[in-house]
């Protein structure tokens, strides 16, 4: 049981209402968990707390039984904006985190090439970042995050800045990658479709209270398709919950 959230509460200002409160859930080993909610309901805040980039007002997060204090390589984050370094090319970006960790040159290269292949970028590995498309940048960021082999991978709407077509393609690729690697992933999105498509479980945040409304088990076998009946029904139900019109 790697990640445990225990009664997280977050207030940015003492006098204002809590952005998040009573957040309790766990992420199991090898699980793909999605968090959905309307814009402004506190999804990014929650992810930043888990990443250790901001401190919650109260509550405890633990990873493998150890409390989370500050950011670390065991919880790599992939952001909405790719955060790739423009002074490095594609493969150097993928190696970046491994270099920080002090891995040998040989291992850096091997892993980087393995993950670049997994995201179909092996031919672009020497390209500078400004010469590849937005979708390819997010794939590079994904390869960089995967190559870190962290205990859990945190993703904050990684595909939402892309056009619909590219974003659908990338999420299918992510599903494929996950089926091959079974990484533990916590994935944040405002798209219910994306959440139902990717998640083993989907955590629904209520629109205004900053609380967990419900946690769904998505029993649909993989690979999933958005037009099957059980998918459409579940998607419809969760969409209503997210909007808050039960």
């Amino acid at each position: 049981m790697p990640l445990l959230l225990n009664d997280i509460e977050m207030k940015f200002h003492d006098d204002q209402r809590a952005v998040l409160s009573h957040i309790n859930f766990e992420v199991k080993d090898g699980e793909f968990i999605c968090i959905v909610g309307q814009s402004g309901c506190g999804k990014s805040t929650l992810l930043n707390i888990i990443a250790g980039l901001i401190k919650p007002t109260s509550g405890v997060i633990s990873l493998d039984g150890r409390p989370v204090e500050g950011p670390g390589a065991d919880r790599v984050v992939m952001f909405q904006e790719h955060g790739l370094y423009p002074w490095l090319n594609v493969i150097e970006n993928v190696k970046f985190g491994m270099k920080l960790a002090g891995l040998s040159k040989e291992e850096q290269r091997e892993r980087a090439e393995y993950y670049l292949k997994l995201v179909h970028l092996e031919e672009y590995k020497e390209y500078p970042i400004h010469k590849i498309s937005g979708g390819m940048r997010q794939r590079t960021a994904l390869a960089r995050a995967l190559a870190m082999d962290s205990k859990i991978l945190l993703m904050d709407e990684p595909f939402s800045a892309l056009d619909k077509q590219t974003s659908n393609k990338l999420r299918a690729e992510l599903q494929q990658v996950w089926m091959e690697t079974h990484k533990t992933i916590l994935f944040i999105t405002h798209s219910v479709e994306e959440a139902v498509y990717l998640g083993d479980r989907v955590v629904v945040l209520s629109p205004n209270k900053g609380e967990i409304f419900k946690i769904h088990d998505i029993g649909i076998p993989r690979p999933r398709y958005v037009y099957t009946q059980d998918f459409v029904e579940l998607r419809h139900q969760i969409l209503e919950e997210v909007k808050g019109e039960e």
Partner: protein
Amino acid sequence: MSSLIFFLVLILVWQAAYWLGIDVLHIFRPYVMPSPIGVCTRFLELLQNGSLLKAVGNSLLRGIAGYFIAVCIGLLIGVAINHFRYLQKNLKPIILGIQTLPSVCWVPFSILWFGLSTRAILFVVVMGAAFSIAIATDNAIKNVQPIYKKAALTMGATQKQLYLQVIFPACLPELVSGLKQGWSFAWRALMSGEVMTTSIGLGQTLIMGRDLADINQVMLIMIIIIIVGAMIDKVIFSKIERKILSQRGLL
């Protein structure tokens, strides 16, 4: 090409004005007006007896030495005022203030401390450039996109790694423009320093021109000061700037 023609026309106009003002209308006395021919003659004379090259060489050496010290000090102060909130709040306003001082204001200090020596000149150069470099460094670091730092932190970067592998390369383009501006401050400060001493250099040759009432020499040295300063700017800094920007697709 068109700028070359403009330049040639400008010189022709200058020569014509000189000829008109002195030989035809007799408005000016010849020894207060420089002329292109006079400047060229002086240029060839000073080139032949070797004193011009020596002056340029000496000034460049001093400029570069002073600039190098200023860069080291400036970077150090810049990083420090950026890193420590206490210094940001208390020291930065003072540095901002000092930075507005024209470099000549450091001359009395430097003479009292170091006499009429090369060290006195270096002191003026360092004081003239270091603070602007410090402020530029602070600003460059501030403008690093937060996402770059966040990404590195979640990949487990230590403070040292964050500075060396993220912040420094990320702020390099802006840092180089800051260093470029620092050079122009250093070069100007060098001249304020050199005019006060007797050690051979461009500033001293300029003052010698005044003492000899040789307006052509004064003009010549001014032109050379402009050319040398601009050359360093164009040949070194602009090249580095372009290279960094094009590597990142920003050009």
